[in-house]
């Protein structure tokens, strides 16, 4: 790695930190600006109780002071604070516990999506306009356009209700069998998308002069595909995989709901509806950091895959 690349990476890391800080700041102040409070419910508490709770969570102080305290807590003490709604639990413990499941599920799904996507995409490109290409394209079109709540419900009806083959739940009690349906539901969209991406990029590469040259020079068909075409056609896939990984491992609210998966996805929504400010901040920071890091990683991967690309 040359110094130019290193400098670029360092610059990107600096930018990443800045991005996360901006996200934290904006989220913090937006939270404060939104009407509502974590202490309201259908049954109202008295003003004295609300005041006591606000004091307990430091919400009685000026917003700017709360902001500085919060930044200090996360930077200096790595403390994301207590969850207001889930009394007795810290934001860190909620996130870690949820992430364990979501990451496991997400990585399996991402792996499956990547492998099937690239393989099917390559096959479709190589058999362009043949029947197999058509079949793959029709199926992927269907999967790309079908929302996951329909896909999940469909799989549930077929494999759980009709065939009684798999458990309905993705929780630990169901064992590995419980992961099958949520993983498939999670993986189908990215798999289909990667297939289409790989296909079009592969077709593009296959038409390039250097492929023709390689073929003309008598390089064997497989070596042309794996040694030259596939590697170069993966660049757009890599761009997509970074953010995809970030989204897929932070869980999907829909998939978690349908299959009762104990992941973190649900908290992205429930923390906001419950105005659980520390949990909103925690989940937002996790998602922001993941996306920033994944983008950085895919940028670096570009370089690995295609040495012609200079990072600066």
């Amino acid at each position, binding site marked *: 790695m040359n110094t130019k690349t290193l400098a670029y990476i360092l610059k990107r890391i600096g930018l990443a930190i800045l991005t996360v800080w901006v996200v934290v700041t904006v989220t913090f102040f937006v939270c404060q600006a939104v009407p509502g409070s974590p202490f309201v419910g259908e*049954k109202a508490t008295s003003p004295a109780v609300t005041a006591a709770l606000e*004091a307990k969570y430091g919400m009685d102080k000026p917003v700017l002071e709360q902001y500085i305290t919060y930044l200090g807590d996360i930077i200096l003490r790595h403390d994301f604070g207590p969850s207001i709604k889930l009394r007795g639990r810290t934001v860190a413990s909620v996130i870690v516990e949820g992430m364990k499941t979501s990451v496991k599920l997400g990585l399996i799904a991402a792996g499956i999506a990547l492998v099937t996507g690239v393989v099917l995409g390559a096959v479709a490109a190589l058999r362009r306009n043949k029947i197999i290409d058509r079949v793959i394209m029709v199926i992927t079109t269907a999967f790309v356009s079908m929302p996951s709540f329909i896909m999940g419900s469909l799989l549930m009806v077929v494999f759980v209700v009709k065939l009684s083959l798999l458990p309905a739940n993705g929780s630990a009690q169901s064992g590995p069998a419980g992961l099958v349906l949520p993983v498939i539901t999670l993986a189908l969209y990215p798999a289909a998308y990667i297939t289409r991406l790989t296909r079009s990029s592969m077709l593009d590469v296959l038409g390039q002069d250097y492929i023709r040259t390689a073929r003309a020079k008598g390089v064997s068909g497989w070596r042309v595909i794996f040694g030259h075409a596939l590697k170069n056609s993966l660049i757009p896939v890599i761009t997509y995989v970074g953010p995809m990984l970030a989204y897929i491992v932070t869980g999907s609210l829909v998939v978690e709901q349908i299959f009762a998966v104990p992941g973190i996805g649900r908290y992205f929504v429930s923390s906001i509806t419950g105005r659980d400010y520390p949990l909103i901040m925690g989940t937002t920071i996790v998602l922001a950091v993941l996306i920033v890091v994944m983008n950085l990683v895919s940028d670096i991967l570009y370089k690995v895959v295609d040495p012609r690309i200079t990072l600066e």
Partner: protein
Amino acid sequence: MKKILSLLLACAMVLSLAACSGSPAAESANPNASSAGTESSAPSSNGGASSIAVCIASEPDTIDPALNSAVDGATLVSHLFSGLAKWAQDDSGNLVIVADAATELPEGVANADGTVTYTYTLKDGVTWSDGQAVTANDFVFAWNRAAGTDLAADYGYMFEVVDGYAAIWEMVKDEQGNDTDEFANPDATLNVKAIDDKTLEVTLANAVAYWDELLAFPAYFPVREDVVSDEAWATDPSTYVSNGPYTMTGWDHNSVITLEKNEHYHDADSILMDKIEFYLSDDQNNMLTNFQNGSWLLIDDVPTNEIANLKANYPDEFVVAGQIGTYYACWNVNENILPASSTLTGVEAEKAKAEIRNAMALLLDRNYIVEEIGQAGQVPASSFVAMGMTNPDGTQFYQTAGTSSDYDGYYDVSVDALEDNFAAAVEVLKKYYTYDEATGKFTDIPALTYLYNTSEGHKAIGEYIQAALSGVGVNMTLENQEWNTFLNTRKNGDYSMARNGWLADYNDPICFLDMWVTASGNNDIQYGKGDHKDLAMYNLDLTGLGYEDIKVENGTWAQTYDVLIATIKSCADDDTRYELMHMAEDMLMSTGCIVPLYFYTDIYMLNSSVDGFFSNPLGYKYFMYCTVSE
């Protein structure tokens, strides 16, 4: 080639459409397939008759007895803790409150100052799940903790009846007499004492009819000081020390909470179910699938659009139970609904508005709402205090409400009465608005807004109200807000009409009536606030009931309703008390601000292999006496 492609595409679309539309019907039209599933999977998932898997809700916010404010949390806590009293079924299946950790539930002794003292003795052998004895001091600690300012629990006000509570929450007043944010008596405690390890003495500010029931309420359960000193104690089985029929042996967050029989429980022999798994799910379709394949034997919620099918296909397993609660629409009392041309002001205007609101309430067909929208066996309501609340003689409170002996409550909500109601309403509205005979509509009713929180059910009811009122020319727009924002808007009174609902905390009408005193945090109608504050138009005469000094003519809301509620709260005679409560409801309903729509029900599905299950009117479910037949 293109032909093949388009053919394939068309096939895929047809297939996916057929699969989507076919799924719900196929699911319910095939009960045999599901029961076959029950047989095959029941042995593995239930592991014999001494364990049961159920789903009553998603992850509870807390299962700390003092902090819990949810019905599902109360169910869990009721299995884990043993208070002085508990809910039980008597031999004929009626629900009763019986002594649990206490040897008996004695009558209170009235003191000269009007306070009432109760003395309880703890049973022998009442211990914590770690073997330590439960002492009277544990109750003293737990109650002060639950009622205190440190915890500031949602349900701290359940201790309002105990002497000393008011002092705990008294604030220092500033020069204008307004509350500051400083507590006046930081060291104040409840008037509850441990005479010795086994004897507990508690003094109530005055006689309270529902005191025994409060003792069975989760907030009144004991906790031990050294256990709860760890703030995270209630989130982890290893630190969760309880004293009830069960101990928590596992909590996989968002998956399952496992309870196993507590051998240290003082009445362990009576507990039939050895292990209960409370699965945590917030998806109704997921719950239903798990019920249908026999994994879960009780689910507390079902998809609304499946209700009709489930009723037909699971007649014995689909249960509609009573739940003490009322779904209603409320008006903002200060909203001006008089026509622009009206010259009425002050008291006259408010009297007219009350008449108009009551007339508009007659325009709604509650049977349509429960049958077409609710679909879960709800009961059309014509009073605010919910069905299930009883008078001292055991009759239903709502049936004796109102003045007419021809129907229950304040208006006739039967289908037969619809036409008469409509005609009567139009007659009243004609007094205030311009009626166009040609169209049968009023032309100058100001535009109104109906506020509801985002939910298909609330929306459907809003749309119905909009449609029904448009029949007489009301131009009503619907406004939907996200839950938390909605609560805020409604509390601040920034609405004209809003969706509202109330579930009882305990089986006494006062928990419906005291929310409308001026200072109540639940006073969304804004009684006694804003313009309504100074309107001297209400009468209160209690001289006939033994309160010689309470007679107010043309008083404000604070001078009448607030006084009436305070009187009810300190009244020791049951008959008088209930008469006063009926008066309070009469007064509320006369304002027309509350438009009752229906009384809630609790629907759940219970596998027919389960025996011995019961639930109480507050919706708590009890599995400890259940057996499961193979």
